Structure formats: C-alpha cells, structure tokens
C-alpha cells in the first residue's frame, strides 16, 4: 500500500537516476544534453500518466498523502517541469552548449515539488521544499561563466536559506506547542484543545513567512527581480512555475487542513500579503526596462491575486486559486519562451526596447506575446481572465470587498505595463530582427498561445478538476 501511493514519485526518481547515469557514462565527445533532455521529458510524461491513475491514500506513517488535490498539483508541476525542459532544448549558456545536468536538476526539483504537493507532515513539507529549492539554487547559477547568473544563484541561495530557517523555526514552534507534526493530528489537537496557544500562532506566522518567501509574495519578495533576471531563461520559466505551484499546494494544504480551525486568525495575514503583493507588483513594474525584471514584478502581483482565493478560505476560493495557477503556468511559460527567443547573433537580449517593431519583423512571435500580455492583464476571453474572475468572485462571496477593490485597481495599473509591451511591439520603430527561433521555442510559444487564447474550451474540465481537488482538501 505504501509504495503504490508514492509510485509516480518513485518512478520519476528512478528515471532521474537512470538519466543521470546515462549522462555520466556518455562519451565526452557526444554531448548527452539533448538525449538527457528528451529522456527527462519522457519521464515527466510517464509520471504524469501514473499520477492521474494513482490511488488515494495516506502512507509512510502519515508523512505522505495522495488525494485529488495532490494529483491536481502534481500534474501541474509536472507540466511545468516538462515545459521548462522543452525550453532548455534550445538553451545555450555563455560558454556555449547545454550540459546534461540541467534537465536532471529540473527533474529532481520536480520530485521535490511532488513531495510538497503530497505532504501530510511538516517533515515532508520541509524535505520536499529543500529538494526543490536546492536544485533551483544550482539551476540559477548554472551559467557559471556569467556573472549575473552566479549572482542570482548566490543571492537566491542565501536568502532562501534564511527563509528555510524561518520555516524551520515555524515548524519547531508548531511542533513544540502542538506536540505533533502530522497534519491530521495537529487538526485533531487544535479542535480538541479549542484554539491555539500564542506559541503556535507564532509558529504559523513563521511558517507563512517562510512559504511566502518561496512564493515571492511581498514583503518577502526582494530576491525575485535579481534572480529572475540573472538566471538562465528556461530556469526562470521553471522557477516561476512548478515550485510556486507546489508552494501554493503546501500553503493551501496546511492552512485548510491542520490550521483550518484557525482561519479567522490567519485570514487577515494572508489578506495583507495578498494586498501588498498586488500593489507592489503592479507599481514597481512600471519603471522596468528589462523584460525579465518586469516579469518578476508581474509574478509578484500574480501571487497576490492567487492568494486572494486562499484569503477567502472557502472551497470556491481554493478552486479559484487552482484555476488561476493553471492559467498562470501556461501563460508564464509562453512569455518566457518568447523571451528565450529574443536572441541576436546568438546573444540573449532582454530589454523591452529590443522588442520594438516585433510586429513587423516577426509577426508570429509578436502575436503570441500580445496574447500572453492580454492574458496576464486578464482580458477576456484569454485564460488569465477566467483565473481572475474566479478568485475575484470567491473574494466577493467571502465578503472581502476591500481586497476585491484593490485587486481591481491594481489590475488596471497592471494593464498599463502589459499594454506598453504590446505598444512597443506594434507601434515603435523596428529594431533589428531576432535570430530564427529554434523549433522547441516556436512549438512552446505557439502551443501556449493556443492554450491561452482558447482556454475557454478546456475551462469546464479544468474547473471541475479544480473543484474536485478543492473538495478533497476542505471536504
């Protein structure tokens, strides 16, 4: 019973080890990078299938749980991992050529995110988070001959360690005052004890702080712009996707599960983080000239919107958050595929000004970028609209009118800088054309563009899956 519920993780781990071995034993003359990337994508696909058919249950002495919610989150993070791996296919570092550790590290990081999605115990939470973060620290510094990449890796590592420290502090306070680290047991204890002690509340605050760091929610966002800008573009695309989704899985699960009874206490905290993220994300993005930095601030804002659903603390809110994250995953990968395609004579260019006149020099790419920008700001009928609609309606249902108003205002501010990019692409004087796009990037941007534009077609299944996931969580 134990091993069958963690079967997808076990398979993915084995695949990772095999791919690592393949990469190591290959002759140095043939670069195993492409082969390893392909194998990694295949491993993600197999695991994704296994996840969808994996049975419900809890195992390993209540450290691991598999339910509808876990499956939903795992599939999302596997998709995130696979898309990022596809993007790495065209990746060339400063010193030229990819190295096979890149897909392998993405794979291991994704195992971490899957553990996070399935955590039923604070220990799983921490180990999963560390596994996924450690791999990302390395990935950020992967282009070791580039100063910005090394800087981003180091910065993320140091601040991330600090956040892990806070998280551990929170876990140990929770353990000290709750007497257990199992989610179910904490819930029982809290309900039977009738409320939490002060120490436990402190523990929750530290927990939220540690997780908010990984989400890059204000006020724990300071690492985001530098890391986004410095990391290799496929890595940025990855770290904006799967790990954040998994962190959301954690935060949703612990807030709704063990601390569900304390909702009135933590709701305010989440609301605050949500408001601050939305406001800061939209205001700070305005003066940006680098598109990767802009996307960093935009992701801060998006995390704010997604947290809105949690702040509502209702099944509808959680469903909204899940749908929001799904749409965010796709449009985010699409944007970064576009950014990765911004290469001139083999060098990456990331200034917004470099996009000028893209509508004439490369109409296909410009169209896709425009779709993503419209989706990011929440224009109907793109994907982003439905995500926003659901979290807003959940907030409305929970009576969080202030939050709703701020969300609407910041969306309007956000529209300014998203539309600015569209304006630069279509109305500014043409800059020199970019290099021809590699097939993997073209595939990614077109397919993500189609998903984003025609999300309404899959809205039904996604919403019902999210509904099932949310009800698995809150019951």
């Amino acid at each position, binding site marked *: 019973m*134990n091993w069958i519920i*963690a079967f997808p993780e076990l398979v993915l*781990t084995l695949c990772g080890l095999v791919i*690592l071995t393949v990469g190591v034993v290959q002759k*140095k003359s043939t670069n195993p990078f492409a082969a390893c990337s392909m194998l990694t994508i295949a491993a993600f696909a197999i695991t994704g299938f296994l996840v969808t058919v994996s049975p419900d249950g809890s*195992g*390993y*002495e209540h*450290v*691991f749980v598999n339910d509808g919610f876990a499956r939903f989150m795992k599939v999302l993070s596997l998709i995130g991992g696979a898309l990022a791996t596809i993007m790495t296919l065209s990746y060339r570092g400063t010193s030229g050529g990819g*190295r096979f*550790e890149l897909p*392998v*590290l993405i794979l*291991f*990081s994704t*195992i*971490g995110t899957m*553990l996070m999605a399935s955590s039923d115990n604070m*220990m*799983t939470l921490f*180990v*999963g988070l*560390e*596994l996924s973060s*450690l*791999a990302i*620290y*390395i990935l950020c*510094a*992967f282009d*070791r001959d580039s100063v910005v990449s090394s800087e981003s*890796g180091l910065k993320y590592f140091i601040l991330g360690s600090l956040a892990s420290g806070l998280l551990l502090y929170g876990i140990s*306070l929770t353990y*000290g*005052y*709750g*007497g*257990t680290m*199992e989610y*179910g*047991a904490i819930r*029982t*204890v*809290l*309900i*039977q*004890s009738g409320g*939490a*002690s*002060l*120490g*436990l509340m*402190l523990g929750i605050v530290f927990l939220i702080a540690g997780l908010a760091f990984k989400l890059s929610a204000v006020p724990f966002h300071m690492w985001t712009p530098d890391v986004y800008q410095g990391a290799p573009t496929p890595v940025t695309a990855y770290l904006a996707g799967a790990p954040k989704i998994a962190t959301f899985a954690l935060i949703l699960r612990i807030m709704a599960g063990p601390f569900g009874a304390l909702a009135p206490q933590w709701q305010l905290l989440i609301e605050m983080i949500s408001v601050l993220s939305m406001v800061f994300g939209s205001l700070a993005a305005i003066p940006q000239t680098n598109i990767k930095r802009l996307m960093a601030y935009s992701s801060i804002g998006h995390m704010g919107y997604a947290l809105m659903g949690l702040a509502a603390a209702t099944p509808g809110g959680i469903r909204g958050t899940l749908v929001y994250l799904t749409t965010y995953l796709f449009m985010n990968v699409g944007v970064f595929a576009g950014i990765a395609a911004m290469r001139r004579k083999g060098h990456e260019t990331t200034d917004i000004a470099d996009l000028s006149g893209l509508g004439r020099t490369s109409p296909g790419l410009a169209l896709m970028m425009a779709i993503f920008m419209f989706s990011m700001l929440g224009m109907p009928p793109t994907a982003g609209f439905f995500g926003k609609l659901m979290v807003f309606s959940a907030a409305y249902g929970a009576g969080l009118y202030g939050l709703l108003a701020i969300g609407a205002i910041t969306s309007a501010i956000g529209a300014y800088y998203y539309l600015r990019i569209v304006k630069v692409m279509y109305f500014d004087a043409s800059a020199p054309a970019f290099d021809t796009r590699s097939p993997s990037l073209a595939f990614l941007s077109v397919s993500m563009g189609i998903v984003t534009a025609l999300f309404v077609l899959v809205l039904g299944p996604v919403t019902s899956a999210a509904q099932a996931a949310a009800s698995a969580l809150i019951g």
Partner: protein
Amino acid sequence: MTALVFYVFATILVLSATMVISARNPVHSVLFLILGFFNAAGLFLLAGAEFLAMLLIIVYVGAVAVLFLFVVMMLDIRVSEAREGLQRYAPFGAAVGAVLFAELILAFGHWRIAPAIDAVPHLGQAAGETNTAALGDLIYTHYVLLFQACGLVLLVAMIGAIVLTLRERPTGRRQDIERQHARTVADTLELRRLPLGRSVRELGGFARPTSYSEAAAKGSYDPHAPVLSDESRGE
C-alpha cells in the same frame, strides 16, 4: 550530580558558542565550535541519547568541522575588513535579534503543549529497545520515504557542487591508472649498448620513454614537447 554535570557542559557550551562569534582569529572560532560540539554531545549523553552523542562527534567534529578548519586555515581572512560593516549593521541586527528574542520569551512564557495531545497516537520507543534501535526503526522503517528524500537532497547538492565547480582542464598531468598498470618494462626502459668512454650526452641525451604520453590521461600530456636532454636538467 547529574545536574552539576549538566551545568558544566551547558556553561562551556554557551561560552564556547559565544567565543565562536567573538574570537578574532577564525581558526580559533572553528576550534571553539568544535568544543561546543563536544559539550553538546555531552548533553546528549546526559539525556540518555548516546547514539546521537556519538553521531554528533563522528559527523560534525570528525568530518564537517575538519573540512571547515581545512578551509578556514587556508583562507587569508582579514578580520578588520570583515568587521568593517559591523558598526553599520550591528544596530539593525541587534534590533531583529531583540524582536525574535522577545517573541520567544513571549511564546515560552505561555508554554503549554496542546492539552489534547494524548488524543493522537505517537510513534515511540518500544520497551527494552536501545535508542539506537529505536532510531533505526523510525528512520529505516517508518520514515523511509523521508530518509530517501534526504538522500536525494544530498545527491542534488553533490551534482550541484560538480556542475558549478568542475572544469575539465587539459593542463593537469593526471595519470590514467589502467594504462599505467598495463605498462611493461619494455615500454619504459631502453637498454643501450654504449661504446666505452663515451657518455650518454654524446648519444643525444636521455630520451623520454614514448609511453609517457600514452600512460597519461588523455590530453594531459603533450607528446611533442621538447625532449629533456641532460643539459637542460642543469647538471
């Protein structure tokens, strides 16, 4: 008696921890850190956790701190430079520390484990089981998933260390051990019959065995390098 031993260990532990951060010489800091580990191990022993105590010494003192010391000894750390920012950041750090401390006081002032904790089952030590066996049971049987996940974390760290630092330079003269083993005397040694009264020098100096470049790891040795004659050895 136990209380006395506890206070001795605890006092030295706290003192050496203080010295770790206040010692001027970083090597001294590491040595105090080691002293601290020892006393922590002593505390573990007092608590009856002899396995943890030994593990602390083997892992932290015997391996981690050695590497620490190894690195610190080789670094040329200028303490005055490291302390430059201290004036500026000290108040800020102190403030954060004070807040955390106050929160802790606040939290521990109301120390009360949730009263309903007995309602949930706990994994524990079976009667008559040594704590080593109990830990083994927990780690390898009940929490094996987490144990393996921790193994993965370490694997990732190892991959990271290699990815970020290993550079294949063609300059090192590494030995290819299999080739070295396969070498025979005939490859290495050349016996020449010399006419009486004439030196090796007149016959063109010492020739380097051709198998040199074969025994070396690929690319690490240039077979076309000028032959070292015994003039250039500077007799």
